[in-house]
């Protein structure tokens, strides 16, 4: 894996080979710098004292190190509560969605299930056709889900993409396991819970990462459905309000009353500390889950 298939192990690399190698390494280093610099810059500014940041010129090291920005955002205002709501929707949404998706995936993997083909088509159709924003908005309103926490969880519980991904993993497990469990008198749910789920850990880890990242990062449902209720505000939405208020004017779409909430202007360092709090949880977990999602992506790609 570690050496390129282009290279012949016995030959000494020619000069043009060397030049190509060096050029590629330079490009890669540039990609790494361009990718990392914005994050390091934000990190540095978030640890820099607000009064000093105004002078400008902070790059990747804080000039006047302080924890005050973090203390400020966690001691008052909407951020602590928004953090709690974000964590709550991520944890709850991920667990429930994972449970639902894997259960439906198991049912679909059972070749003897009566509605197998119907259910499979029924789910697949929704991947190609969707009603769009306006009918969805009216539906949520008619169901009285506006200004509720439920709106973060319920509509997203069943995710067809993850169902198909988990099903193709279950299809690869030996069927004999289920049969022997059945002979021992286990019912279908027990088989799913005791036999199938424990074997699905790799694919469940992948799906969990994607679902959790999706939950943590989403802001539009808050904007659309819970924007007027500060008790249900999420970190991403708070950050969005703060960023939009200081960017060149207001957002073009703010035709409703949300625009009025976006007037407060925070110092640069505080803004960057909030950005960091919104980003850090993901940055901390994703390197550990990398091997899972790379495998998961490949699995999903092969199966189409």
């Amino acid at each position, binding site marked *: 894996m570690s050496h390129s298939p282009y290279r012949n192990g016995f030959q000494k690399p020619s000069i043009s080979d060397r030049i190509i190698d060096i050029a590629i390494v330079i490009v890669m280093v540039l990609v790494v710098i361009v990718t990392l610099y914005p994050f390091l810059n934000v990190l540095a500014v978030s640890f820099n004292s607000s009064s000093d940041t105004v002078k400008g010129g902070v790059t990747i090291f804080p000039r006047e190190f302080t924890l005050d920005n973090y203390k400020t955002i966690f001691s008052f205002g909407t951020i602590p509560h928004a953090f709690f709501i974000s964590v709550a929707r991520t944890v709850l949404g991920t667990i429930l969605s994972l449970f639902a998706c894997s259960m439906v995936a198991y049912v679909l993997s059972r070749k003897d299930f009566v509605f197998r083909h119907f259910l499979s088509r029924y789910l697949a159709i929704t991947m190609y056709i969707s009603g769009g924003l306006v*009918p969805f908005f009216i539906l949520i309103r008619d169901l009285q889900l506006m200004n509720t926490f439920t709106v973060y969880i319920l509509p997203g519980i069943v995710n067809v993409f993850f169902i198909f991904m988990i099903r193709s993993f279950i299809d690869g497990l030996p069927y004999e396991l289920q049969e022997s469990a059945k002979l021992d008198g286990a019912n279908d749910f027990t088989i799913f819970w005791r036999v199938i789920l424990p074997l699905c850990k790799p694919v469940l880890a992948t799906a969990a990462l994607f679902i959790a990242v999706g939950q943590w990062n989403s802001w539009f449902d808050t904007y659309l459905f819970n924007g007027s209720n500060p008790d249900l505000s999420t970190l991403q939405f708070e950050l969005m309000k703060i960023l939009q208020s200081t960017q060149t004017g207001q957002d073009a779409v703010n035709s409703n009353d949300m625009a009025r909430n976006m007037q407060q202007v925070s110092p640069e360092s505080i803004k960057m500390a909030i950005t960091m709090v919104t980003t850090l949880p993901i940055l901390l977990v994703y390197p550990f889950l990398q091997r899972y999602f790379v495998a998961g992506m490949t699995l999903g790609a092969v199966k189409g």
Partner: protein
Amino acid sequence: MERTIPAEKKVKKGLWRTLVDQKYLLFMSVPFAILVFIFSYIPIWGWTMAFQKYRPSRSFFEQEWVGFDNFVKMFQDPNFYLALKNTLGMSILGLLIGFTMPIIFALMLNELRNGMFKRFVQTVSYLPHFVSWVVVSGLVYKMLSTDDGPVNQLIAMFGYEKVQFMAKSEYFWLIVVLADLWKELGWNTIIYLSAITAIDHSLYEAAKVDGANRWQLMRHVTLPGISSVIIILLVLSIGHLIAIGYEKQMLLGNPLVSDASQVLDLYALKYGIGQNNFSFGTAIAVVNSVVGVLLLFTANGFFKKRTGESVI
């Protein structure tokens, strides 16, 4: 191996008996099928609103039907064409840049000899994929700002005048597309890299014996090896050409650049929800979806004609 399955299992049972037998499987799936019905199928049914003068307080049977009035109104609105132009502009530009760069990046990564360095570059390049567009928009504003942004500092270093990137509509399309490239470059290479690893190594050996150099190997072994993946992804991205969403445009946009940032989904949001004109907003979404599905089938049709396979 011969399994000892009781003989009666082979006998065809009645539907009712099967349902009773599979009651657990039904309990495990029917509630979720109902959820899908509510949150996916009812909104599709909501498309009927596009043909009505929808009033929220009335039931379906009391609505006033207006035929294609909403569509006619839409096709007469200059804002619709502006939104269409921006949608297509950004998606085609995105296809040109955002589609080709991951392929080139994957080919280059594949040339890296040092495994540790390769893994480091990959890990770093995946990172922005996991960050929300809210954060990315904040980073873009910060990086392009006129007083402290590194891009403008570089421009100033070379003696040029600083540019107000975020306030000029002529830069908006490119900023959106490049921000998207920054966010998804590494992520989109995963699939090409795994396709490259799947190529039979003996092909490289054989080509080397024939005296192929590095470029020829890339041109005649690697690229053909991943071409099917490239085509499949190309067909899918053509299908999604018009469905570029609203998130980036909404977060990166501002009133100064609104003539470049207004896309179809934002247009639907603005008229449909912002101004409570639900029927008009739905009509936009219907056109959006229909064009998307048509594009997908057209692209897939061409693909099928050439290769005899189907992507969807």
